């Protein structure tokens, strides 16, 4: 298994090192529904991996498994080869949506400081060391000029930076980012992607970053994990984002078009005609529903104007 996920182009010693995170034959049932089935993939130290899937594909569920907020029905989650401990210092997390009251009396620097020791009892004593650590982290994510602003009043992209600083200040080995690009404009999107690439490189940090569209992530990811129909396909983009692999994963024919460094994934015309209805279907349990959604998510990005 290790061989088929190793990336020969990344130049990182994925083959020789044990996985930092490994999902081993994970199955998840929630409310009598099978959400994930026999999911297996690993992430090596320092690797940036994109977790790509449509709405409801199971991306957040995978994060919850890694964090121990959810126990798998079958299979194991291993962190550094060990079963995941309940309280894990080595994993940092930025949840998908955080809605903060704009008037909440909490500055960016307070939120980042809570990343350091927010789980502890007692009041933090103001210390020079603590302040320097926080300032350093704010600077690392480019948040210095809104360090003293209320977090709730920041824009989506600014909040995302502060949240990343909050997750990074405890020096985790693995960072989980759940849809950090959702609701960002193109410029903020690029800034966040660049930030992730930079901190991953500087700190030798492994990152699992989810999105419904692979394109904005192309410059940073070493490998991708596609989720659909409860299954995953993982490997380099060259290995996974092909008509054969995705057709098998989605369960119907999918075309992959590479154009000016961008990847367009499109369903066959017959299916894309019915996807409008399927997308709105509430239950979404059918294999077709998920499949069509997955394809839509990628397909709709075709009219983006940036080249990556």
């Amino acid at each position: 298994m290790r061989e088929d996920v190793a990336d020969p182009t990344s130049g990182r010693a994925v083959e020789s090192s044990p996985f930092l995170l490994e999902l081993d034959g994970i199955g998840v049932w929630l409310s009598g529904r099978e959400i994930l089935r026999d999911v297996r993939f690993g992430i090596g130290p320092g690797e940036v991996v994109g977790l790509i899937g449509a709405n409801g594909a199971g991306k957040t569920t995978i994060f919850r498994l890694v964090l121990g907020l959810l126990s798998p029905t079958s299979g194991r989650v291993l962190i550094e080869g060990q079963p995941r401990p309940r309280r894990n210092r080595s994993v940092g997390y930025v949840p998908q949506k955080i809605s903060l009251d704009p008037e909440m009396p909490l500055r960016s620097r307070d939120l980042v400081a809570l990343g350091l020791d927010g789980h502890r009892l007692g009041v933090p004593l103001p210390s020079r060391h603590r302040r320097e650590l926080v300032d350093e982290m704010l600077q690392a994510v480019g948040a210095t000029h809104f360090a003293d602003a209320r977090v709730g009043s920041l824009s989506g992209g600014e909040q995302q930076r502060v949240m990343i600083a909050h997750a990074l200040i405890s020096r985790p080995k693995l960072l989980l980012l759940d849809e950090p690009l959702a609701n960002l404009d193109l410029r903020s999107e690029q800034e966040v992607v660049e930030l992730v690439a930079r901190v991953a490189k500087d700190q030798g940090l492994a990152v699992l970053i989810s999105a419904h569209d692979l394109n904005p992530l192309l410059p940073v990811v070493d490998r991708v994990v596609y989720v659909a129909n409860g299954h995953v396909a993982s490997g380099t983009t060259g290995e996974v984002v092909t008509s054969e692999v995705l057709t098998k994963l989605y369960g119907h024919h999918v075309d992959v078009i590479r154009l000016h460094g961008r990847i367009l994934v499109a369903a066959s015309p017959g299916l894309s005609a019915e996807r409008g209805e399927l997308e709105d279907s509430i239950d979404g349990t059918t294999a077709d529903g998920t499949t069509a959604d997955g394809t839509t998510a990628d397909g709709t990005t075709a009219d983006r104007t940036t080249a990556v």
Partner: protein
Amino acid sequence: MFTGFMVNTWIVATVVAIVAGVVGFFVVLRGSSFAAHAVPNAAFAGAAGANLIGASSVGGLLVFAIAGALGISFLSRRGSRDVATALAMVVMLALGALFLSFSNEYASETYSLLFGEVLGVSSSELLPTAVLAVVAVVAVVLFWRLLLLTSIDPELADARGVRTSRVELAFLVIMAVITSMSVPVVGALLIFSLMIGPPAAARSFAADPFVAVLLAVCLSLVTVWTAIAVSYLTTLPIGFFVGALGAAFYLAGRAHAGWSRKRVGASGAGASRVVAPLDDQGAVR
């Protein structure tokens, strides 16, 4: 105004104001206003019950307030927090009504439990009040970071191994403690306004959580002291002044927030237009 029973009132009111400012800050931060309304109602039932059997009223307050807090916490693990809070409150109010109907001092008793009484503090209540106040403040200091972290996002706290539901329970119990010591002075209905008004105003004025708590305490003290003095001089009910001042501070806070947002918005929009002429969303913030 500063003699006899009034001295006790001043002392207890001061202690209540300090603790209400500290705990109220987190009530507002965590969006627990409804629970802050429900727990004193539970305490009210406890006091009525204690009076009926001739037990210590602080004891009755404490037992029922904590029972209410536990009830809210237990029920909200299984469903909506609002519904759980409402249910707990309704049960407690019903009990309170029942206890009062057995009592023969119905009207005056109810009135002082609900709206407080300037001369309602006897010397024997000073020590229990002080002890409960210390317990509440120490607990908030102990849970400071956990209370902040869990009010940002429960998932974020859970992911770090914090048991969010236990922090919530601890907070409800702290609220029950401060309620129990406050009801005899400001009443079950008005401790609520003391826990919401000054802290809600404070958070509009200060962005730093430490500063906001200190400010909440100051505003709370001003509210209580003013209310007692004016109530003494005019013989109008103390509760009216507590409620009115709390609301006034809150409105001042809103006005300040609105004003400073307009100011920041104006300069911020200008700045981002200069930096990013192509970004049409820059001005939105």
